[in-house]
C-alpha cells in the first residue's frame, strides 16, 4: 500500500467530488497493510501480508442513491468509479427515507496510530509464534495461534465540505494451547492498538498455565451458579446487547428496549447500579476514529448506561429527524467501569463458584429478552473457599446479558480486547455474577 498522506487523500477526495454531476457525493478512501502468521500443531502453517486500497463513492440524484468502489486511484479510475456510482443511482428507485449527507463536522483527532505497531515485520510475527510454540513444547503441550497486525489510513469527504483523515494501527493475538492427549486446553487473547502494550510471552504463558491446570476436569451439575467471568467471557455477550441499542427498533416495539404501550426505555433502570458503560473515541486504551464511517457524523463521549439506567440510544439520521433528536456518530468502542481488583482477588472473595475463561459460539435465542446461548471453553474451573479447587467440564449457558448485568456482585479490573465476532473495541472488567444459567454439560475440551 502506498501510505497516503493527508494532503494526498484530500487531493483525491476533491478530485472525486469535482467529477460528479450528482446532487450530493460522499467519498471514503482507505488503505491497509495487514500482516499475519498462523500456526498449529506446534508449527507455522501460513504467513502472509495483504496490502489493499479502497475508494468508495456514493452519489445521489434526489432520493436515488448508487455506490461504487474501486482500488485504483489514477484519474481515469476515479472518473470510472464516479460514473459507475451515477449509473447505479439512476437505476435505483427513490428511497423515501433517504437523508442528505451531513454538513461540516468537527473531528477531534484520537490517538489511534502507534509507530511501533506500524513497524511490525515478519521477524516480529515469527517471534510471537516462537514464544508459544517453544514454551508449549517444553511443557509437552501443543500450540495453535494466530497473530495479525494492521496499519491503515482512512479519509472521508462529502460535497458539503466534510473532510477527515486519520491513521490507525492495531494488533490481535490469540493462542490455544492443548495437552498432547487432548484432555486440557487453555487460551488467551490480546487486542491492542499499541504494540508496546503487547507481550506475546505473557499471553502464551497464560494459555499454557490454563492448559496444564485444565486436565482431569470433573463434571458439575448444570444449574445456576455464581460465576467469575473473565473479560473475554463477556465480550460477545455485551457486544450483542449494545448492537441492540437502536432507538428506531426500540420505538417500533421490536427490541428489548421497547416500552410497553410504545416508545423506548430511556432513563429506566435496567441493570445493577454498579453498571456504568460509555463510549469514548479518545480513550487512550481503546481509541477509535472520531467519526462514524457510515453516517460521517462525529463521534462523541456518550454515557450509554449510567448507574444502571439506560442513558443513550443510537439514532440514525432519518430516525433522529423523525423523532426530533440529534444524531451523532455511532460508537466504535464500549468501555465499562470496573475496579482495581485482579481476577485473583475476585476468586479470593468467592465461597463457591465457577471461573470462566472464554465463551464460544454465542447466538441470539430470543431478541425479546436478549437471551443468548453459547458455551464455556478453554479453561473452566470450580472455586471453593476463595481458591480454584479443580477444573470442570464445559457448560452450555442460556442467559441474557441484561440479567447478567443485574446480578453483579463484584467487578474487577478492565482489560482491552475485541470480541470474536463484534466490531467494537472493548475495555471491560472481569465480573462476579450471581445465578448465571448453565443449562447443560459439554464433553468438549
Amino acid at each position, binding site marked *: 500500500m502506498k501510505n497516503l498522506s493527508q494532503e494526498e487523500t484530500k487531493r483525491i477526495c476533491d478530485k472525486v467530488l469535482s467529477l460528479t454531476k450528482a446532487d450530493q457525493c460522499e467519498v471514503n478512501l482507505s488503505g491497509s497493510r495487514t500482516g499475519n502468521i498462523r500456526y498449529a500443531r506446534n508449527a507455522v502453517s501460513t504467513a502472509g501480508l495483504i496490502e489493499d486500497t479502497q475508494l468508495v463513492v456514493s452519489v445521489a440524484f434526489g432520493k436515488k442513491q448508487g*455506490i461504487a468502489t474501486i482500488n485504483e486511484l489514477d484519474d481515469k479510475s476515479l472518473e470510472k468509479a464516479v460514473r*459507475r456510482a451515477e449509473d447505479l443511482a439512476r437505476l*435505483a428507485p427513490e428511497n423515501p427515507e433517504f437523508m442528505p449527507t451531513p454538513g461540516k463536522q468537527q473531528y477531534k483527532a484520537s490517538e489511534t496510530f502507534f509507530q511501533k505497531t506500524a513497524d511490525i515485520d515478519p521477524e516480529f510475527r515469527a517471534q510471537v509464534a516462537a514464544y508459544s510454540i517453544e514454551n508449549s513444547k517444553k511443557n509437552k503441550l501443543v500450540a*495453535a495461534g494466530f497473530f495479525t497486525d494492521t496499519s491503515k489510513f482512512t479519509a472521508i469527504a462529502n460535497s458539503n465540505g466534510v473532510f477527515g483523515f486519520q491513521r490507525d494501527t492495531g494488533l490481535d493475538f490469540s493462542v490455544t494451547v492443548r495437552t498432547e492427549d487432548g484432555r486440557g486446553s487453555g487460551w488467551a487473547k490480546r487486542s491492542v492498538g499499541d504494540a508496546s502494550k503487547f507481550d506475546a510471552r505473557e499471553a502464551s504463558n497464560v494459555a499454557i498455565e490454563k492448559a496444564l491446570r485444565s486436565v482431569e476436569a470433573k463434571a458439575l451439575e448444570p444449574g445456576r451458579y455464581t460465576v467469575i467471568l473473565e473479560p473475554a467471557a463477556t465480550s460477545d455477550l455485551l457486544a450483542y446487547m449494545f448492537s441492540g441499542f437502536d432507538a428506531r427498533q426500540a420505538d417500533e416495539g421490536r427490541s428489548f428496549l421497547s416500552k*410497553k404501550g410504545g416508545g423506548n426505555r430511556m432513563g429506566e433502570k435496567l441493570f445493577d447500579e454498579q453498571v456504568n458503560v460509555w463510549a469514548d473515541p479518545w480513550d487512550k486504551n481503546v481509541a477509535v476514529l472520531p467519526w462514524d464511517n457510515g453516517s460521517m457524523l462525529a463521534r462523541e463521549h456518550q454515557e450509554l448506561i449510567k448507574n444502571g439506567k439506560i442513558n443513550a440510544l443510537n439514532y440514525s439520521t432519518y430516525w433522529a429527524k423523525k423523532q426530533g433528536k440529534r444524531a451523532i456518530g455511532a460508537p466504535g468502542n464500549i468501555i465499562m467501569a470496573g475496579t482495581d481488583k485482579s481476577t485473583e482477588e475476585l476468586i479470593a472473595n468467592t465461597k463457591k463458584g465457577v471461573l470462566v475463561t472464554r465463551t464460544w459460539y454465542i447466538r441470539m435465542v430470543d431478541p425479546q429478552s436478549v437471551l443468548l446461548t453459547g458455551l464455556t471453553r478453554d479453561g473452566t474451573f470450580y472455586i471453593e473457599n476463595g481458591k480454584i479447587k479443580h477444573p470442570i467440564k464445559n457448560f452450555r449457558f442460556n442467559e441474557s446479558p441484561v440479567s447478567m448485568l*443485574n446480578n453483579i456482585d463484584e467487578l474487577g479490573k478492565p482489560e482491552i480486547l475485541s470480541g470474536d465476532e463484534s466490531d467494537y473495541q472493548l475495555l471491560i472488567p472481569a465480573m462476579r455474577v450471581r445465578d448465571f444459567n448453565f443449562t447443560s454439560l459439554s464433553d468438549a475440551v
Partner: protein
Amino acid sequence: MERRSFLKVGAAAGGSLLIPVFGNAIAAEELLNPMAVQFKKSLADAAMNAATKAGASYCDVRIGRYLNQFITTRDLNVENIVNTESSGVGVRVIAGGAYGFCSTNVMTLDSVAEAARQAVAIARANAKLQSEPVQLAPVKGVGDVAWATPFKKDWRTVPIKEKAEMLIAANKAGMDAGANFMQSMLFQVNQQKYFASTDGSYIDQDMHRLWSPLTATAVDKATNRFRTRDGLSSPVSMGYEFFDAKPENKFKAAGGVTTLYKGAYDLIEDARAAGRQAREKLTAKSVEPGKYDLVLSPEHLFLTIHESVGHATELDRVLGYEANYAGTSFATLDKWQSKKFKYGSERVNFVADRTTSGSLACVGYDDEGVPAKRWDIIKDGILVNYQATRDQAHVIGEKESQGCSYADSWSSVQFQRMPNVSLQAGKKPLTPDDMIKDVKKGIYILGRGSFSIDQQRYNFQFGGQLYFEIKNGKITNPLEDVAYQSNTQEFWNACSALCDERDWRMGGSFFDGKGQPSQVSCVSHGSPTTRFNGINVINTARKIG
C-alpha cells in the same frame, strides 16, 4: 461455524458506505463481459514458469473474477442496490517441501510472475519450520476444460427494476398479512474461476448462486411482545428461474401447516405466510420443557447436519489445524480406524458430494483442480470417511483427493472446506404425515433458527422458525419458545425414521466461516423429514427487568 457475516451485510444496508465487503462495485452492463480464456492462460503460464524457475516443485494459479449484486429492501422502500466486482490472481507453490502463497490484483504478466517468485520466497521461509514436507495426492492434468453452473435465466440480465419490484411486492404481501415490518434481500453471486497447475490443468469455471432471505416482524405494543418469522427458502446454485415457482415446486408441510418449496421459490407467497405466521406466533402456546420426539423438516435439519456432521468430519479440524479458532472434532482418527464407531443409528447414511445440481458446493473441479466426486462419510450409522484435500489424502489412506479445497477469493489461500454433506432418504415409502402418525408426544419443527455447538461438535442447541405440537399422532397447535439440546452422537443414534426420496430436499448457507484470517464458503445439506426420539427440549422464554 456459520458466521454472522450476513448480519453485517444486512446491517450495512442502513449505512451507505459500509457495503463493499465483497469487492469493487461495477455497473450492471459490465457484468456480462468475461475475461478472455487465452488471457487467463497466459497469466497462469507466466506465474507457473516464474515459480518453477525460482525452484518450486509445484505451482497452481487461481485467476478469479467475482461479481455480486445485492438489493436490500425494508417495508416498501428499496434501501440499497450495489454491484460489486473483485478480480485478481492467487499463486500457491511448494518449494523446499513447504507451501507459499501470494496474490495480486494487478493482472499483468510481470505482476503475476513477481507474485509467483514471492510465493516461492515465502515457501522457503516456511520450510525452515516445517516438520514434514507437504505430500500431495496425485491429480491427473485435464488440459483445457470448462464447467458452468447449469441455469436457464441469467440473473445479470434481469432488470434491477423487476427484482426490486418483486422484493417490494413480497414486503407488501407480508405486511398485508399481519407483519408490522418486513425486510427482504436478494443476493446474487457469479464466480468466474480459472485454475491452472503444473500438473497440466487449465480449468475455466463459471458459478452462479442466489439467495433471497426475508424476515417478517409482528409487534403487539399492548403486551410489549414481538415475534419474527424468516423465509423458508434456501440459497441455491442456479439461475433466476429459481423465482419461477410452478405448482410442482410447491407442497404442503405435514398437516398442511404451511407451504414448502423444492427446486423453485415463490417469494411473495412465502412472505405472505411469514407475515401471517409472525402474528400468530405472538399468541402461540409456550412449550413445556421435557423430552419429545422431534420431527424435523429439511429446511430446518440442514443446519443441524452442517454443524454436527459437516464440520465434525473435516479432516483439518480432526488433525488440529483449526484448534485456535473453529475448534477440533470429537470424530478422531481412532474412531474412524476402529470401523465401528456408531455415529448414528443404522438408518443414518451421510454422503459427501459436489455433484448434485443446484447445490451450493456443486462445482466441476475444486480449487486444487480435483474433479467433483461423491463418497460415503457415514454408512449404516458408522463413521467411514472424512473430507480431505490433496495434502491430507495420505493421512486417511486415500490414493486421491476428495476434492474439498476452496478459497473464498483470489486473494485467499485455498484450504479444506466442506462439500455438500447430506443425509440420505429412507428406503421405505414414508411421508411426513405418515411419520407424525406414530408420534405420541412430539414437536414438528420447520425453518432455521438459532444455532450453537461446542468446539468439538458434541453439545448443541437449535431453534427453528415454526413449531407445532404433536399429540397422539396429530398436529394440535403452534408452539413457541422451543429449543432442543443434545449431544451429536446421542442425537444421531436417536434417529428413528426417515421419509423417502420424495421428501428429500436441500437447505444451505452462504456464510460458513472457518480459518484465520477467516474465510466464508457456501454449502448445501440435503435430507428428508426425519424423526429423532426422546430429545431434550427447553423453554427459552425469559423476562428481563
